């Protein structure tokens, strides 16, 4: 990554820049989704792209998630590199057959003959007062499916570099963006051309007493908790896997081996979720170096409620993580 970090972009701007660069660079890259053109999506992530690339590259679709995702699969097989926009991650439910039974399996079922180079961008994350059908973080489902790759960036710079890599990849990839980060999270983004390989975790903060393994929206939470922990003399390391498949198991395990304690934190549901896998990987890989069990923090196991005081209880906070980390460190 070039180190000209002389400017800051929001997460949304970084995503848009990645798309614009890849669309300039490769005329096969196009965008399909609901209200992606003139409206630039309800989240305004794609604003300006249709002005530059026109409606022959940026396609407003009907409200047919299964249909246009399926079209993207066929298009990807036959020479196009579609980037599909699924507005809310909750609507992945409608695309599961196309993504899981089709996109994920075609390369394998055809003995390697057909490829499906497509990216499906979608969102995760609660806290927008959008209630149960617009607040889910369903990435665990896709991670479970061989043939798919899952990218889940936590910073504008990662979002840009990983999205560019994803678009150039030959496989179906799901790219998750936290809705709350789009405009609220700003960060340095190099100006030059760069990509970030899939499957490489990043240590976002170095520490020695405990490893906080965090994804997407939870990376900021972990960094906040690490600050709080520092104040009481606990040095927390924050590790972001950045992609959940491929998964950089080694970096996670090494961090836990070094610190001897780990907490995994992710905004998806805790049960049968991403945290279970990451915790298991660490438990298996670092068992004999661990001073305590690997703990998991995810969304409370309830449909996300609308009512603000209730919704706020469902997502892990810096304080919750701080408390859990403090307790774990005091135990041994």
């Amino acid at each position, binding site marked *: 990554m070039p180190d000209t970090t002389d400017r800051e972009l929001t997460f949304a701007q970084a995503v848009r820049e990645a798309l614009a660069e890849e669309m300039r660079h490769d005329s096969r890259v196009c965008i399909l989704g609901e209200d992606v053109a*003139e*409206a630039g999506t309800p989240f305004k992530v794609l604003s300006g792209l249709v002005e530059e690339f026109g409606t022959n590259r940026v396609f*407003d679709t009907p409200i047919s998630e299964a249909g246009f995702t399926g079209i993207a699969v066929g298009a990807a097989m036959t020479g196009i590199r579609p980037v599909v926009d699924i507005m809310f991650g909750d609507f992945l439910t409608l695309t599961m057959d196309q993504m899981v039974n089709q996109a994920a399996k075609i390369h394998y079922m055809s003995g390697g003959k057909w490829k499906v180079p497509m990216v499906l961008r979608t969102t995760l994350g609660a806290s927008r007062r*959008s209630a149960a059908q617009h607040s889910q973080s369903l990435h665990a489902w896709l991670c479970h499916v061989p043939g798919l790759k899952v990218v889940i960036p936590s910073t504008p710079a990662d979002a840009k570099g990983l999205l560019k890599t994803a678009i150039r990849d030959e496989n179906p990839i799901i790219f998750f963006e936290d809705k709350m980060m789009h405009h609220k999270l700003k960060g340095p983004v190099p100006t030059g051309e760069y990509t970030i390989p899939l499957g490489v975790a990043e240590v976002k903060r170095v520490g020695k007493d405990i490893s906080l393994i965090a994804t997407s929206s939870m990376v900021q939470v972990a960094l906040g908790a690490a600050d709080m922990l520092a104040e009481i003399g606990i040095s927390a390391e924050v590790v972001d896997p950045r992609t959940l498949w491929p998964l950089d198991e080694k970096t996670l395990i090494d961090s836990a081996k070094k610190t001897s304690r780990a907490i995994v934190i992710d905004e998806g549901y805790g049960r049968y979720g991403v945290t279970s896998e990451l915790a298991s990987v660490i438990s298996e890989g670092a068992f004999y170096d661990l001073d305590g069990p690997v703990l998991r923090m995810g969304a409370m196991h*309830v*449909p996300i409620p*609308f009512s603000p005081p*209730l919704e706020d209880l*469902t997502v892990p906070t810096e304080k919750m993580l701080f408390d859990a980390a403090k307790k774990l460190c005091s135990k041994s």
Partner: protein
Amino acid sequence: MTPQTEEAVNMFSKELALHAYRQMLRIRMFEEQVNELYTRALMPGLAHLYSGEEAIAVGICEALKKEDYVTSTHRGHGHCLAKGATPNLMFAELLGKEAGYCHGKGGSMHIADPATGNLGANAIVGGSMGIATGAAFSSKYLNNGLVAVCFFGEGALGQGLLYEVLNIAQLWKLPVIYVCENNLYNEYTHYSETTAGDICARATAFGVKAETVDGQDVQAVYSKAKQLIDDARAGGGPAFLLCNTYRYTGHHVGDINREYYRTKQEEQEWKTGRDPIQLHGERLLHEGFTDKATLDALESEVREEMKAAVEFAIATPYPALEEVEMHVYA
């Protein structure tokens, strides 16, 4: 005003006509308050206003029994009110309060109420098509004579689920009415960019009878709906009703700058020339069912009703924090 059969006009009695007017007004004034709550930053999240489309919900619900079922959408306040919901409990829900229809857990897009047959608003476009059809399935299975109405926007025509359930409803002759509210826009995209062919033909292709009605004319909606509902109740099977309409404001309360997808002139034409409340008010006056002063008084009365409901909602408490883990399982 679309031409009506004499019978249909007659069905729409003075009492009904006055009630329909009041109901439409209540929806309009309800939404006025919702917008106000948003502007004053008192409402969490967003809401999708039904203003301009009132004649549809009211025309149809006036033709339903209280026990009949409805399913609604993200733009659901009108359906809920028309089916008999109480504004106090709706506003409380919109503010996430314990007193709300769903204890504040649902919010604007999920108001549900067994007492009025409201199976729930739904934030998944087309998400309630199966549910409404299933309620009709129950009705037939239990032979209880109930009818289910499935409201949805024309954007939901893009969801394959509709065609799956149209087929089944017709095969099994289920008493369900699919009501398509074509307000010309899917969010920020004109429906002509997303909708090929002929809308009613999408129902008749499955053998489901389809009708089109002026969605700004509550009497027209009522009389078409009444025929279709009575017929479904009598075992005549499902129907599809296309209602042409317009939403006056943004896709949601935050959608303020709309010029990039529709003109102010277009909005103005609908609001002045085809307002369902105004048109129906004129009819009431014309028929001699009421007078201008009474209508003006009604407007004040209803506005006060809604203001009081908002005050109730603001004053009433949030749910206890323990509520968060309640109702996950029955």
